């Protein structure tokens, strides 16, 4: 398995807070890599560093063999690295279809409007939003908006997809559908790097899991090993129910 | 006494009035994140308020500041209700446009009443002469009044319950609500105080220079410059920045034509906005 993404020693400090400290890991082609950690561990910040929303204070990020450290998010998307947001950010004044067309137009393939429209319709079909294509993005339910996030990112035709808590707030049926979708995305040849709090899901989906605590990587291993890791358990001590879930997930 | 020193003292005196004007803008901006574009119109109304009161009573203008401020508070509540109360939770551009709309209406009505012709408040206090230079009594009294009003505001904000509530809301509106502070009332009071400060500064300006209903606009622009220099939501910082702006004007004017000063000011304004969007002298409370 070749490495799609290599992260080496990246750090981010906000004022007095070291949000991410010296984190390194690799992500292989076709892999689903999970990212977990207690609240405030720096997971979303790590995503923001990887896709260029924040500039890393140190270290390098290599994607597809290219150094993308310090590149802006739009440049990163063009290379094939797309993401979703933890807090959904639909372009509210536009229709669902237009939202996805934006993703396709400005994605890796830099499609024309005509191509983008076809791509968008295809992606909407895939995420199950085809019937809502012409409604306003604002009018979608939370589950719908999460799917829209995924659809926009997928429309960019990425090689790697960063999913930030796409399961949070969904009901069990919706979670099941989303998991199926994620698996189908991976089967379609797209690698996935995902943050998730729904432990059962991430333990089942991930090939490997990176665990962050207080900005530091404390573990990187297949799910079965992660739950046994003493540091991980300690990190989650303040959250006994999650420890249970971690255990229960196995 | 050297020309530069005299010029800087003149700058210091007028700068405190700029500072007072900017305090009103800064307070409103800091507390409710509204850039109040009625500011200039309110300054102009303060000028005409002083003109009318002085014309009617011939009382000491510095005593007349009290009714001007009182009227400013009432006016502030009306303007708040008209242009701000319903956009407070909408995007910032909405309050920008709604306060701008009210500004147009006030200027329009003011023009219908007073036209755009200049008016004077004919009042002068004896000045202080040092060597060849004389500092007029009106300038000195205006500067003192501005500083006194600023100190009173500071006392109000830090020593009274209402003032503390305003600061709490400015700091974090949601948290203040949780602590049982009614933010709607607090916002209205803060807005009214901001308008009263604008009116007071206008009233002081009217004792110094002739004015028209449009004169507020240039003080509004100066208030922007001062507020941006000071950082938002720092009323007392605004006074200091106003004085510094006046000193800057005084310090450069001996060396260049006065007509270049606006270029320096607005150039500085844009550059500071770009480089220090949170102000040179501090971070925003938000």
């Amino acid at each position, binding site marked *: 398995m070749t490495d799609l993404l290599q992260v080496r020693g990246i750090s981010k400090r906000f004022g007095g807070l070291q949000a991410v400290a010296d984190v390194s890991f690799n992500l292989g082609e076709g892999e689903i890599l999970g990212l977990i950690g207690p609240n405030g561990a720096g997971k979303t910040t790590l995503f923001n560093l990887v896709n260029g929303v924040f500039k890393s204070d140190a270290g390098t990020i290599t994607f597809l063999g290219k150094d993308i450290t310090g590149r802006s998010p739009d440049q990163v998307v063009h290379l094939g690295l797309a993401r979703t947001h933890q807090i959904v950010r639909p372009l509210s004044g536009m229709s669902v279809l237009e939202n996805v067309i934006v993703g396709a137009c400005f994605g890796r393939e830099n499609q024309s409007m005509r191509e983008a429209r076809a791509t968008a319709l295809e992606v909407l079909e895939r995420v199950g939003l085809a019937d809502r294509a012409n409604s306003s993005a604002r009018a979608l339910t939370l589950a719908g908006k999460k799917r829209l996030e995924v659809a926009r990112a997928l429309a960019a035709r990425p090689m790697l997809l960063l999913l930030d808590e796409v399961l949070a707030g969904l009901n069990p049926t919706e979670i099941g559908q989303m998991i199926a979708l994620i698996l189908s995305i991976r089967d379609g040849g797209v690698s996935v790097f995902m943050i998730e709090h729904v432990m059962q899901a991430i333990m089942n989906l991930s090939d490997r899991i990176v665990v962050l605590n207080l900005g530091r990587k404390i573990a990187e291993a297949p799910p079965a090993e992660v739950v046994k890791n003493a540091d991980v358990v300690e990190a989650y001590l303040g959250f006994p129910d999650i420890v249970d879930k971690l255990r229960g997930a196995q | 006494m050297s020309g530069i020193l005299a010029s800087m003292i003149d700058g210091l005196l007028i700068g405190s009035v700029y500072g007072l004007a900017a305090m009103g803008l800064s307070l409103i901006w800091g507390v409710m994140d509204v850039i109040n574009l009625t500011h200039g119109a309110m300054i102009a109304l303060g000028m005409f308020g002083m003109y009318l009161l002085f014309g009617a009573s011939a009382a000491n203008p510095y005593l007349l500041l009290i009714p001007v401020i009182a009227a400013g508070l009432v006016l502030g509540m009306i303007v708040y209700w008209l242009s701000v109360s319903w956009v407070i939770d909408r995007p910032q551009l909405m309050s920008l446009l709604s306060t701008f709309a009210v500004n147009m209406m006030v200027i329009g009505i003011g023009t219908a009443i007073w036209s755009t012709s200049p008016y004077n408040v004919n009042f002068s206090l004896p000045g202080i002469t040092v060597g060849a230079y004389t500092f007029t009594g009106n300038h000195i009294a205006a500067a003192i009044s501005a500083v006194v009003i600023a100190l009173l505001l500071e006392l109000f904000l830090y020593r009274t319950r209402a003032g503390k509530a305003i600061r709490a809301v400015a700091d974090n509106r949601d948290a203040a609500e949780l602590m049982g502070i009614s933010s709607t009332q607090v916002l209205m009071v803060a807005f009214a105080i901001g308008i009263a400060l604008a009116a007071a500064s206008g009233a002081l300006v009217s004792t110094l220079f*002739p004015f028209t209903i449009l004169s507020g606009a240039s003080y509004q622009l100066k208030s922007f410059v001062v507020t941006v220099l000071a950082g938002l939501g720092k009323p007392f910082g605004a006074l200091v920045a106003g004085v510094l702006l006046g000193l800057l004007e005084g310090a450069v004017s001996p060396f260049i034509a006065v007509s270049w000063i606006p270029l320096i000011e607005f150039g500085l304004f844009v550059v500071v906005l770009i480089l220090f969007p949170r102000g040179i002298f501090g971070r925003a409370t938000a």
Partner: protein
Amino acid sequence: MKRTSLIAFLLSLFFVAGGFAQTITLGFTVSRTGSLNVDSLEQYRGFELWRDTVNAAGGIKAGGKSYKVQFASYDDESNSKRVQQLYTRMILEDKADFLFSPYSSSLTATASIVTEQYEKIMLTTGAAEEKTYKLGNQHLYQMFAPATQYLTVALDALKAKDPKATVAFVYEDASFSVAVVTPAKAYAQQLGFNVVFTEAYAPNTTDFSAIIDKVIASKATVLLGGGHYADGSTLARQLYGHKVPLKMISLLVAPDSPQWAELGDAAVGVIVPSQWEPQSTFKAQYGPSGADFGKAYTAKYNAPPSYESAGGYASGLVLQHAIEQAGGIDTDKVAGALNSTDITTFYGRTKFSTVASEHGLQVGHAIVLAQWQKDKAGKLVKQVIWPLAGKSADLVYPIH
């Protein structure tokens, strides 16, 4: 006599009813509001008094017809943008036959573009700057003596009193004052004066402290400049408030207005270059005498006329004269009559240049100097001090 007037009256009724009444429409804007309102209203009163006088006498008689004068006039708010819209409107919609200029060189320059584009005659008054006449206008006629003369006259007066004076020029950055000061500065140097300070201020300036501090630092003893009423009166007040030790102050336009007296002590001693003063004693070949004009004006407006008022009235007279000479209101014929005009009215001599490169420039009129002085009763009055031949009082120098 009675019968003929009755017939005339009936005839006029008939013509009015039948739509044959002869009227001419004069269009112009007035700065009723804005920074030029004081000067502009005085000019308007001159127009108005002339119109009422002419109409009371049965109108302008030319080519066997009588023309009643009516005005189409709007407020330009001292704003040159409105001037163009309004002059266009007066020409196109109000069908004005002739135009008077708005007040001030800047507004007139703007209006003259419209009037020239539509080839309408415009008599300019309250507009002394010369540049406008050198842009190729063919229908513009200047009633005021050109700007060059304003301060050169003041410098002549100063030369006679104090050839060693040090001079500061502080003036409005506007068409008129720039046109006045530029040649005046050269002339001052030519006369051997030491010009120690020159600065133009923005037209809407209200705070002169910084400039005043510089004047003090320059150790100037004489200040020349100003612009119009709003800025000039403010400058004088602040010069007084800052107790600037000046021996002579000569400001443009503003001190000519009777309102200047409202400045009280700040008004004393200030000199104004003037197009006309009530004390002037020109022998009028045409129209009323200066005394009659002054009396009629004061009776109507309860204030003495300023030179803007006189210029306004004289514009009417000169146009009336030209229409009479042309025998009608045809633009080309009236233009011809104006080109050959050379008359003396109560306002002085009026003659327009017919040289192509400066067509319409005033070449007959001359500037006098007036100074605000306290009379024996302590009342502020304006006295003519220059030229010496026509003076009503001596120049008070230094002021204090």
